[in-house]
């Protein structure tokens, strides 16, 4: 609790709330990072589910770098946005759900990469891909709802 207040009163927290360009720029980076992560992950998921089956799964490797750059961008911009209003986000249920879905989404991706390592696509891999889609699209939904639900 004290830590949350400390975050809000930190230089970063104040910068996000009060500087003219801080908040809009960080928010814009968060949207671009989202498009990179969720975009690449969705393409891999639909590939595992049977779309564009002529692309070998292993050849998607080079796209992972982009997904990780997007993830890193969103982790940083997300932390900054969190500092701006730490107490609200920390106790907000839809925000907690969003973070949970992102953690599950990352785990699902990690599992999916192991399941598809030897090029064959099993039923289990397809289930993981579907679960991954649910997690990431769910995270977007929960993220959008942080602006609407559970505000004092």
């Amino acid at each position: 609790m004290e830590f949350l207040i400390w975050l809000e009163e930190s230089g970063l927290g104040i910068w996000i709330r009060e500087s003219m360009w801080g908040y809009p720029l960080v928010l814009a980076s968060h949207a671009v990072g989202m498009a990179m992560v969720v975009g690449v992950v969705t393409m891999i998921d639909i590939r595992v589910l049977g779309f564009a089956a002529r692309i070998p799964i292993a050849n998607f490797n080079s796209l992972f770098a982009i997904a990780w750059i997007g993830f890193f961008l969103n982790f940083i911009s997300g932390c900054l946005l969190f500092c701006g209003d730490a107490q609200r986000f920390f106790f907000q249920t839809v925000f907690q759900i969003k973070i949970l879905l992102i953690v599950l989404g990352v785990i699902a991706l990690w599992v999916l990469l192991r399941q598809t390592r030897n090029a064959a696509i099993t039923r289990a891999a397809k289930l993981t891909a579907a679960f991954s889609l649910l997690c990431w699209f769910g995270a977007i939904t929960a993220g959008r709802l942080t602006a609407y639900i559970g505000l004092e």
Partner: protein
Amino acid sequence: MTETEILSWFESSWLGEAVRDIFWVFPTFETLHFMGLCVMFGALLVIDLRVLGVARFIPMRPALAFTPVILLAFAVVVLTGIGFFCSDPTGYYTNLAFRIKMVLIVLGGLNAIWFWLAKQGKLSSLPDGEQADPTAKLIAGLSLIIWAGVIVMGRLIPFLL
């Protein structure tokens, strides 16, 4: 019809009314708009990074099979976008970020048509692992920059009045 008449026609349309007056429609459209932009950008990344040579080992012809995914996602984004616009046509029409965004979308569309007319056919027979020509790479680079710009400008609409 004058500009004002056109704008008020959008504003009084059933879509405008629905997005303004039913409380869950705006957030739902926003969520769909975000999902659509992710899918669209992801499919663009597959094609453009292949053409740029970053994802050189993705075979070109199946990569181009992601084109319908782009068009489908674009349809979702445009339809929900029309919904936002109708809810407050004057606000959007006079908004600087919105205007820049619309110009960028037109540029992105022309860039895509350039790719389609000049490169799509030639590239689909590109052997696996081979580099595309410099013009194709230029188009692919422009595509990623323009569409990332569209996302940024969209997010700036509430701030750049």
